[in-house]
């Protein structure tokens, strides 16, 4: 039998193994290479002897071409067996062929084992190198970390996910005053401080379970020696590569000093430097917070206190004494009245306030206010002087709902004003009715300027009758307001307001002009009647610099005889006229007008003083006159007093007018006492000028 064609055998061999393993060699190259191998096998088959090295090499060569899958060797044996057995048997070399194939397989197995071991060794070395490289990188980064960690000025602590401290640096140990070892035995959770924001602990829990990776807060720590430090704390989570939480790192910066400054600033912003009491800012903060209480029945109470006559103390004893007084009053109020839910604050000047965040009700508030008054009344020793001061308190109790701090304080201010105007050294409780009145008064006062423009004011005249002959000797001009909505308003409703607002100056000028104008009309109508025109002048008008000039102009313009004009001033207005106003009085008198004292007997009634004033008449106040009208008849004393007053007035060359004469009996008694003029219902109520005309006609 002819030996087989090597390239044919190699073709079958190629088919058998080409797809079995991952190799880089192409099919044609492979077939060529295998042809050589087949030739080598045939040579070996022909030969004799025990050297089967070439067969082993062929097996090994398969492995080095990366025919590493089992299918490659089985395919080889199958293909070569199939193609070469018949020929080998024919030349009686069947055994030798089997031996060659066995050696080839053995060579393949050895080489594969070698290769596998070599690759395994290589990969193990590689993994060790990788590990070493990782270690090295870690060591490098750790060395850097250690350097940063150990020498950092900032305190650093590392803990596990239960808060247990694993590592801390020198700075942190110094900051907290514990040794490194002491800290390593503790938990971050041991460092609770009463001022901790409760959020810190929940933030930490979130960090530990991986919900957040970072948070920052300010936190106080107790050091080992019990002192306190404030820190800015930043906590970060370190995660494993798969993202799961591993460690927490805390960076701690000592901000005690900043914190102290800040708290001091905050304290300064909220406290009054003189008395150390909470100031207005803090009061309003707390008040606003209390008013924000959403409970339905929540009420807030305020006692607003103002020292009486503090300005006088300051003026007479000096500011240092004033400050000292404020300090001791503040201290007493603080000790006696502040407490939980109660804030004693200084609002400024000599004003203090007690805030009751949950009002105990009006009665209790009033009691507290009275206690405050009692506290203030206790004598204060100042530089050897025993000083007694008093105060006035306004009390307000309001539902939190629907009340603003501004409203409440406005009410407190109003109430305090009531306490003052009701006579000081007392407590006033906010009263809605009174407040409503005040509001309507205010509204009225605001309407007055416009009402004056609109000529809503007019004058009524009340006859002044000569007690000798019962003939009207003059009239008192009385101002009225025909209010478009409220109807007719008497002077009691608006004059005081006008006095306060200052509008009295304009109104008074108008009254003077109108009265003078009416006088000139009467002159025209009754040429032989020479009436005295009496007009009221308020203290404010007297104090007004332009008064004399105004009056001069009015007299000139209306052609009024100054001697027929009488200006009425109340006793108290007159008493207040020192210095400049007294000069005004003289200048008025110099113009030739008469000056009368209105409501004589209600004030000081110092007749001796009157002798020095340029006045011409007295108007006896109602009570003098009404005393004559007692049911049991006038007492001897009443009559004697009256007689004495009239006598004295006459001695001072003053005419005497009796007011509020209501009965004929009074009139004749007064006539008997030599009183000059009288007015009152008995002689005629105030009315329009026509009424006077009518009266003249009757006479």
């Amino acid at each position, binding site marked *: 039998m002819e030996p087989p064609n090597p390239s044919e055998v190699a073709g079958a061999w190629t088919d058998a193994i080409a797809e079995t393993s*991952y190799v880089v060699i192409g099919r044609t190259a492979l077939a060529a290479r295998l042809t050589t191998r087949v030739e080598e096998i045939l040579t070996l088959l022909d030969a004799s002897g025990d050297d089967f090295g070439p067969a082993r090499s062929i097996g090994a060569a398969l492995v080095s071409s990366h025919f590493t899958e089992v299918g490659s060797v089985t395919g080889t044996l199958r293909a070569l067996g199939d193609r070469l057995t018949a020929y080998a048997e024919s030349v009686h070399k069947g055994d030798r062929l089997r031996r060659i194939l066995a050696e080839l397989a053995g060579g393949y197995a050895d080489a594969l084992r070698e290769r*596998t071991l070599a690759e395994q060794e*290589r*990969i193990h070395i590689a*993994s060790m*190198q*990788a590990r070493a*490289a990782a270690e090295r990188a*870690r060591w490098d980064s750790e060395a850097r970390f250690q350097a940063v960690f150990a020498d950092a000025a900032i305190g650093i602590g590392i803990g596990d996910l239960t808060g247990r401290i694993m590592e801390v640096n020198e700075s942190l140990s110094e900051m907290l005053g514990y040794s490194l070892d002491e800290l390593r035995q503790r938990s971050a959770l041991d460092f609770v401080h009463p001022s901790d924001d409760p959020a810190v602990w929940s933030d930490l829990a979130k960090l530990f379970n991986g919900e957040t990776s970072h948070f920052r807060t300010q936190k106080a720590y107790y050091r080992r020696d019990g002192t306190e430090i404030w820190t800015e704390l930043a906590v970060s989570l*370190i995660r494993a590569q798969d993202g799961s939480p591993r460690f927490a790192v805390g960076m701690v910066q000592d901000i005690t000093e900043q914190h102290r400054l800040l708290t001091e600033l905050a304290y300064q912003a909220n406290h009054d430097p003189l008395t150390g009491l909470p100031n207005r800012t803090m009061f309003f903060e707390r008040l606003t917070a209390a008013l924000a209480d959403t409970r339905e029945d929540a009420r807030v109470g305020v006692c607003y206190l103002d020292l009486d006559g503090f300005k006088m103390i300051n003026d007479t004893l000096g500011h240092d004494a004033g400050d000292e007084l404020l300090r001791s009053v503040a201290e007493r109020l603080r000790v006696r009245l502040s407490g939980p839910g109660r804030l004693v604050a200084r609002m400024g000047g000599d004003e203090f306030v007690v805030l009751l965040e949950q009002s105990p009700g009006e009665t209790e508030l009033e009691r507290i206010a009275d206690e405050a008054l009692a506290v203030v009344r206790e004598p204060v020793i100042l530089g050897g002087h025993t000083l007694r001061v008093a105060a006035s308190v306004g009390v307000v109790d309001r539902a939190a709902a629907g009340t603003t701090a501004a409203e409440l304080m406005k009410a407190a201010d109003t109430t305090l004003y009531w306490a003052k105007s009701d006579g000081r050294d007392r407590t006033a409780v906010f009263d809605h009715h009174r407040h409503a009145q005040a509001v309507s008064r205010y509204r009225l006062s605001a309407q007055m300027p416009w009402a004056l423009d609109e000529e809503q004011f007019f004058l009524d005249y009340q006859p002044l009758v000569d007690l000798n002959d019962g003939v009207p000797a003059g009239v008192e001009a009385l101002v009225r307001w025909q209010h478009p909505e409220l109807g007719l308003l008497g002077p009691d409703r608006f004059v005081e307001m006008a006095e306060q607002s200052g509008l009295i100056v304009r109104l008074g000028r108008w009254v003077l002009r109108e009265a003078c104008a009416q006088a000139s009309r009467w002159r025209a109508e009754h040429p032989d009647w020479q009436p005295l025109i009496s007009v009221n002048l308020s203290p404010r008008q007297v104090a007004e610099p332009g008064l004399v000039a105004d009056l001069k102009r009015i007299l000139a313009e209306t052609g009024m005889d100054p001697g027929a004009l009488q200006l009425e001033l109340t006793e108290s207005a007159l008493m207040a006229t020192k210095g400049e106003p007294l000069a005004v009085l003289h200048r008025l008198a110099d113009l030739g007008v008469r000056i009368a004292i209105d409501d004589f007997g209600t004030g000081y009634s110092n007749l001796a003083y009157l002798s020095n004033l340029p006045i011409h008449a007295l108007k006896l106040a109602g009570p003098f006159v009404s005393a004559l009208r007692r049911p049991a008849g006038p007492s001897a004393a009443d009559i004697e007093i009256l007689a004495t007053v009239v006598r004295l007035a006459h001695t001072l060359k003053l005419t005497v007018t009796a007011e509020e004469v209501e009965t004929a009996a009074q009139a004749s008694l007064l006539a008997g006492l030599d009183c000059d003029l009288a007015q009152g219902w008995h002689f005629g109520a105030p009315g329009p000028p026509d009424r006077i005309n009518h009266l003249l006609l009757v006479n």
Partner: protein
Amino acid sequence: MERPRWAPADLDLDRPSVARVYDYYLGGSHNFAVDREFAQQVLQAMPNVPQLARENRAFLRRVVRAMSALGVDQFIDLGSGIPTVGNVHEVAQELDPKARVVYVDWDPVAVAHGEAILEDNDRTAVIGADLREPAAIFADERVKALIDPSRPTAILLIAVLHFVPDELKPIELIGQISSLLAPGSHVAISHASPERQAEQIGQAANLYQKTASPVTMRSQAEIEALFGDLDLLEPGVVQTPLWRPDVPGELGPEAYEYPAYAGVGRVR
């Protein structure tokens, strides 16, 4: 401060590694028991994975030759794995001994292994890096020593982009890589796709979800989109065996069932 002492190491030999498992598919022994166990599970779901891997490697060789034919002599193989046989430098340097190759992988064992076997080849380098940070790779001294950025470079992203999920914006990543390349450079991609053998490859991919490298498979259109502004070379994005096969006539029917696509784009 980088990583403190208590932080875990990158190296985790107790879990299968994509690189070593892939070596096992290719008949290598650069792997450990964990890798082989995992590979066995994959093979159960998809017994033809070794053939698929071989086809993929064949594509790699064809691309390198095509690049060489275009005169490109610098290669960066991103996600290169564990070089067994038929590696980029072997193919490229056979055609042009001056060709330079940088292998990049983030598997520390793959890198150490590559360093060991390429020790004597001064036209190659292996660096351990994350391919999703190309700027860092191009800034590496070893890369700068071998690759001249002013001349055309071939970037190989072979069987690796399916390890980059959409959240990490692979299109932008490729755009960023291209922006670092000279005109005439190329980007080659092969990428698993669920369009064929859907059930098997789906199961196989599921197994990877539990590893450190979950798989995101993409459709042909999505793979085409990865090329962005690059000009696709003929024949475009096709099933991997169909990309410029050595002997077109010899393609079997399994080539049309191949569950991955491949293409090469050129930087303008």
